[in-house]
């Protein structure tokens, strides 16, 4: 009886321990992030000061973090209302990126994989090809159908996420989130 209780306890502990570790690595680690709006970044990922969760997550996804002199990657999996980004819906990404010499914005699968090339439009845009307004802000439409202006194609995609990569940026050293301007992601309805 006593042995049975101990074995049961060990089994439960094993399931809880492994399960909780798996769950905390499955999603984007919420540890040691900088966050603003729907966007999240891990400025210490890939450095010596990296937290164990970020390291384990990078090892699992196979990603290589950008170096401190290279830049910072920001990810958004939801819009500003908290809904998951879907390839069937349209979104307006508007505002400004944190200060960077160059930035790119790309559509990926929700897990970070490559989407097959779109028949029409591109899956990624660079800051040098973006049309801006007079005040320096921009509006990008993320939609499955062609759109006027800056268009990111989510054609044929299911659950998606946005990856904004800021190159040669000061955003890595930002500690106060107030200095950190990110574009808003506004849902514009689904098909």
């Amino acid at each position, binding site marked *: 009886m006593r042995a049975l209780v101990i074995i049961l306890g060990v089994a439960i502990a094993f399931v809880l*321990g492994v399960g909780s570790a798996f769950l905390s690595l499955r999603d984007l680690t919420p540890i040691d992030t900088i966050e603003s709006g729907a966007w999240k970044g891990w400025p210490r990922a890939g450095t010596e000061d990296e937290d164990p969760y970020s*390291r384990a997550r*990078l090892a*699992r996804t196979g990603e*290589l973090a950008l170096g401190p002199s*290279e830049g910072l990657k920001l990810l958004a999996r939801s819009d500003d209302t908290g809904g998951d980004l879907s390839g069937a819906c349209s979104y307006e990404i508007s505002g400004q990126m944190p200060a960077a010499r160059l930035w790119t914005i*790309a559509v990926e699968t929700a897990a970070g994989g490559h989407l097959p090339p779109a028949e029409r439009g591109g899956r990624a845009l660079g800051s040098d090809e973006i049309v801006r307004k007079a005040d320096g802000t921009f509006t990008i439409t993320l939609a499955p159908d062609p759109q006027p202006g800056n268009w990111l194609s989510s054609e044929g995609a299911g659950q998606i996420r946005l990856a904004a990569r800021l*190159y040669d940026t000061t955003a890595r050293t930002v500690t106060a989130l107030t200095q950190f301007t990110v574009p808003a992601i506004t849902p514009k309805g689904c098909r």
Partner: protein
Amino acid sequence: MIYEERIGRRRRLIPEGFFGGLLAWLLAIFLLAASIHIVVIFLVPRLASSDGWSKLAAVTTEAGFTLLPPDGKGPAIAGLDPLFVHGACRISVKDAPASLSFSGPNSFWSLALYQRRGTVLFSVNDRTAIDGRLDMLIVDPIQNAQLKETTSAGLDETIVVESAQPDLIALVRFYAPTPRERQVAIEHLQAAECLPAPLEPAG
């Protein structure tokens, strides 16, 4: 009278010390689960075979830069910017220093030296380059001491990076959003050098 009787009955149903034992059992489960959780988190990077380093190591060699997919052959490597052309080269400073040199295209480019665990030892972007050219020498601590003794000419424009670990992977990223720029970036990458550079004997 009735009250005492009830207590007596409960004592017979539940053995003495049951709740204390249950509490200890739950606490033990919690502590064990927490330690398993921590062990798993720390083991994942050590056991992962699909981490970025292993994927790059599988396709790169010590002789020059390898063009990474989609421009090169092989399975896609996760997390690379689709608007960039990437090249990687394996570096070993065990026997001799490694020399890295290339001239970048006119747009943004950057380079990172990755260690076995996937951490960045050193990174640099095109702002550091002199006339768009980057010359880098990667040495281990002993070679670095030898290098400082000889201080031969021609190293003024070379970035010297000391690495305590012998194995590194250099990953170059060239910004190339258009097909034309991609072609130019690929040509720059094919002309890039990444090779062992034995130190000349002092004297």
